[in-house]
């Protein structure tokens, strides 16, 4: 299977391990990722909160590049990039006036009907959990994981159309397919405040703290994420959250692709597990996964 790939800025810098593990497990599953040539930043929260037309145009340029590659399906591992690209595609498809204006600014036609999938969605709907489970050579036995979806993977449901907006299960099923156990918990799709990670640390400590606390109370030994912003936020701010709440969490925050890679038999090194701030190694060791 061939699919266009939109990594986004984070996967080229702070979240390189997400890019590494994504490429590895895709190759393993016979998925050929074609990186969009000369893709630009999706603009994230900055663009849509200060300049709506710019936000849609940034997405439109990426969609136009996709057209140049003669591809109609694209996946992004970053929940924020995915959400921006999908929102742009949706708006352009449903608003002729906007589309005309964006095409005038861009000086290029914007394709219609591009299928934008989050990486999780692609694995679950295009590959299938059964196929993924068949590839497991080293089951993640005994691991108790909290699947954390965050806010942008399933919402707004009218646009994402994937899984339940507030009680999603797809990542749980996938992790179970890898042999792990998942916990039932309240904050699967709550917001961790990542958009404020630099500007309003107080909000991050508040919202991120609630997520970590809920995971701990549910008995999780680690969090599993599908977004570089969630990862960075819950991992790098964990120390400050612990100090703020006076509770030690010590919860590794791993990408679901890293866990797929582990279960497929790849080494922690090639999956970039060393790059996480809260080390998952003590946990992996007690489960005999090293």
């Amino acid at each position, binding site marked *: 299977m061939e699919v266009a790939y939109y990594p986004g*800025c*984070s996967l*080229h*810098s*702070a979240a*390189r391990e997400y890019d590494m593990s994504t490429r590895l497990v895709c190759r393993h599953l016979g998925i050929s990722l074609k990186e969009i040539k*000369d*893709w*630009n*930043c999706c*603009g*994230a*929260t*900055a*663009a*849509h*909160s*200060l*300049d*709506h*037309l*710019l936000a849609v*145009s*940034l997405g439109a*340029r990426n969609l136009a590049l996709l057209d140049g590659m003669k591809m109609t399906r694209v996946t992004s591992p970053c929940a924020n990039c995915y959400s921006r690209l999908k929102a742009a595609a949706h708006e352009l498809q449903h*608003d002729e006036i906007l589309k005309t204006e964006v095409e005038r*600014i*861009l*000086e290029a036609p914007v394709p219609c009907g591009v299928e934008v999938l989050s990486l999780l969605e692609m694995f679950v709907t295009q590959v299938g959990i059964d196929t993924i489970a068949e590839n497991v050579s080293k089951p993640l036995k005994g691991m108790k994981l909290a699947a954390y979806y965050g*806010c*942008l993977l399933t*919402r*707004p*449901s*009218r646009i994402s159309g994937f899984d339940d*907006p*507030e009680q999603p299960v797809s990542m749980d099923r996938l992790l179970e397919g890898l042999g792990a156990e998942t916990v039932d918990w309240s904050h699967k799709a*709550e*917001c961790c*405040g990542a*958009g*404020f990670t*630099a*500007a*309003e640390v107080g*909000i991050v400590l*508040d*919202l991120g703290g609630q997520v970590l606390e809920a995971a701990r109370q549910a008995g999780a030994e680690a969090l599993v994420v599908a977004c570089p912003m969630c990862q*960075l936020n819950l991992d*790098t701010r964990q*120390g400050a959250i612990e100090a703020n709440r006076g509770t030690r969490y010590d919860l590794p925050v791993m990408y679901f692709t890293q866990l797929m890679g582990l279960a497929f038999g790849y080494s922690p090194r090639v999956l970039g597990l*060393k*790059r*996480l*701030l809260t080390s998952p190694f003590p946990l992996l060791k007690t489960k005999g996964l090293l």
Partner: protein
Amino acid sequence: MPIRIGESSSSLQERVEEACSVDLSQCYECGKCSGGCSTTHLMDYTPRKIIQLIKLGYCDILYNSDALWLCVGCHLCVDRCPAQIDIPRIVDYLREQAYQQGIKPTREQVVTFNALMLGSVFKRGRVSEATLMLQFNLRTRRYFKDAQLGTKMLVKGKVNPFVPGVKGTRELRRLFRGKPAGKER
């Protein structure tokens, strides 16, 4: 139909409805949006009140409200709303208006951060998180903020200031339509 108390009251509602493709007359005032909202406990005006203030035409209150800058865009409100009113889009619209009118935001750092990020997109088409954080700390004069964290991230190889930019910058800059980006206002 907007409530017509004065000309201004109707025009704000109409502008919002037009720009955001929403119909505020469908609002039941049920408050499900506020009940689900991630930052409702911090907001001066909750999402339900924001809708009401728009209907009543209170531009000034809205443009100066703290809630504008506290919305994290989590879309819980719109997914719970029985009328599917796109509140995050409305909040974005109000932010954009307030920003364009040069109204001092209650959370200046949020706007500074967003403007710096757009500045980077304008310059290079992509964003290096490390450079952005550094610029942000310099701009807000917090030279030692997160220094310890920065060192840890450096050790883990998470700091990469050399993210390659896009080649088609000229074409990309057109998307900004001549508007300054990343400039402090």
